């Protein structure tokens, strides 16, 4: 029981950036743009978050909020960087996968280059605090026995939970959401009904960039002490896997993200659990990928993903 309780903070810490980045992927894919560069946007967001945090930390007025301003910086820079994807795929009709791959590669280079310029080394300087854990959560921590699980978790998980609800509401309950989904299913039909496909997709990609940038900043400011070239280490792709495993649905991605986080925590605590300690810890690291492949096979017959996702929209083509 005590092991299970210790696994809660570990699970939530890893799940938070996966969930938020996957929601970013959801907006973009629902509008018909495959966003394979979540990883790259997360890098840029993580770099911006760490940099702002380091630079503001010693400031007397902004110092106490440096971590949160870092998150804001990640979000804003994520939007700006995602415009590269929007311009290349929406205006210039580039192949989504190739454009995304290029943007990923650019992110790795540009962030390290900027670190070299700003800090004179290949990584940012270490920040002293970043985002801190909550010692105690009102109400939740007071519950007997399981209340223990809610001590020492990062407040960012609540951002993720709120974003899941907001995403669900926006995608399924608002006019914008309906337009968004129609652009991803059949853009020509949507255009014939007077929807501006370009504008809708632009908005979707920018929201996607905001969420991925925020996720990257959260990851750097909660997991480590500085931004390095390996800070994001593939979590952007795990987020895409969570999106697929969650069937392109906000609640599904929440479940998938929590499950991937749990499997990572299990890898850490397995050595203390009888029977599980016989399995090599690498096994738990590959569970997310194995399950995603299984999910793809199971879903392959049924149409669950947006139909027009990845297709280039050309108003003149039928």
């Amino acid at each position, binding site marked *: 029981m005590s092991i299970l309780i210790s696994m809660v903070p570990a699970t939530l810490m890893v799940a938070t950036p996966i969930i938020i980045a996957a929601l970013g992927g959801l907006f973009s894919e629902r509008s018909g743009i495959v966003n394979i560069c979540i990883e790259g946007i997360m890098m840029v967001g993580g770099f911006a978050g760490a940099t702002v945090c380091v630079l503001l930390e010693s400031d007397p007025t902004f110092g106490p909020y440096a971590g949160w301003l870092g998150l804001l910086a990640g979000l804003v820079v994520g939007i700006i960087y995602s415009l590269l994807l929007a311009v290349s795929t929406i205006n210039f009709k580039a192949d989504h996968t190739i454009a995304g791959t290029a943007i990923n590669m650019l992110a790795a280079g540009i962030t390290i280059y900027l670190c070299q310029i700003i800090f004179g080394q290949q990584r940012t300087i270490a920040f002293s605090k970043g985002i801190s854990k909550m010692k105690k959560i009102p109400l939740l921590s007071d519950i007997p026995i399981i209340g223990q699980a809610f001590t020492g978790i990062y407040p960012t998980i609540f951002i993720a939970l709120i974003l899941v609800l907001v995403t669900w509401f926006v995608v399924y309950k608002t006019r914008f959401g309906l337009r968004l989904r129609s652009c991803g299913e059949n853009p020509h039909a949507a255009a014939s009904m007077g929807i501006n496909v370009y504008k809708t997709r632009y908005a979707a990609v920018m929201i996607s960039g905001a969420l991925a940038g925020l996720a990257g900043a959260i990851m750097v400011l909660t997991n480590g002490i500085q931004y390095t070239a390996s800070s994001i280490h593939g979590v952007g792709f795990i987020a895409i896997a969570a999106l697929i495993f969650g069937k392109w649905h906000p609640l599904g991605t929440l479940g998938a993200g929590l499950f991937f986080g749990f499997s990572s925590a299990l890898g850490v605590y397995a*050595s203390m659990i009888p029977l599980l300690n016989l399995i090599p810890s690498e096994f738990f*690291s590959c569970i997310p990928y194995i399950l995603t492949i299984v999910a793809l096979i199971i879903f392959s017959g049924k149409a669950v993903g947006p139909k027009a996702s990845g297709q280039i929209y050309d108003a003149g083509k039928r």
Partner: protein
Amino acid sequence: MKKALKLFLALLVSVSLAACSSSNTEEATTTEGSETTSTSGECPVTIGLVTDMGGVDDKSFNQSAWEGVQRFAEENGLQDCVSYLQSTTEADYVPNLSTFADEGKDLVIAVGYLFNEAITEVSANYPDTMFLFVDDVVDHENVESATFNAEQGSFLVGVAAGLTAMENGSKTVGFMGGMEGPIIGSFQAGYEQGVLAVCNDCKIYVDYADSYSDDAKGQQLAAKQYDLGATVIYQSAGNAGNGVIKEAKERGDVWAIGVDKDQYQDGMKDDGTSVILTSMLKRVDSATYSACTDMLNGTFEGGTKVFNLSNDGVGAEVTSGRNLSDDVIAQINDYAEKIKSGEIEVSSEATIANGSSN
């Protein structure tokens, strides 16, 4: 409108490409320039350092290696006889090494195991040039391979960890490595022996992150070990070790031990104190300095040269007034003397399995 935008982007790309290439030539000419001054100024030896990806100001291995070369140059008044070339990708290794060899440098230095293939190739092509290869072994006659006895430095930080755990009564410490194997295994081995030397009933938890980049996993493992009662964790896991430092900062009343270089600054909390108890130092500058000196004295020869406590190749960071008390520092120095004199022999075989404790 769209065409205009395309044209603009195309222009932008070509301009930036042109900018890149022009800055490259600039760099080439500056190195060329330093070369001409060095040959004209009667150099007893000429030395070239090829950096790994990252410059000589990367606050890490490259910087340390260049500092060793510069210390040598200053002491002997040979500032004009040393120069460096920066590598931006792995593809630069062979051309950079060959450039120095072509220029007739007496000694060419490369730092980091990533150079293994490049050194093997270039040292065979230039049998008359001497090479120093830091951190790994290439078995050629004209290559000196410098390796480090990490277990000796790890023993000393183990002493610091054991004494600290005794002091606060937890008698529990932890070790977190990157990937299991002989390299990190020697760090673990030295640490185990150092802890047990001062606290023979101390408990040591050992975990590996299976990664040098996953700081989230590092933080999870650190939380697990601290929850189990560990007061100090020695991390030897590259960027994954950053997770250990972050978790130590969150808790505030526990310690982490740095690796390879002095990580005191990385552990700074907002109250101006650091969670880094001490750091295991790998002195790359000692290796480059001694190779340059050997070159000048004509005693440089190929083969493997081991850097340990005796020749200042490894050590523990013991700056007074930080987190170690003077008494602990005295004991660390004591053990260092015993290891140097051979009274204590530190084995490089780890005994505690991944995911368990003694």
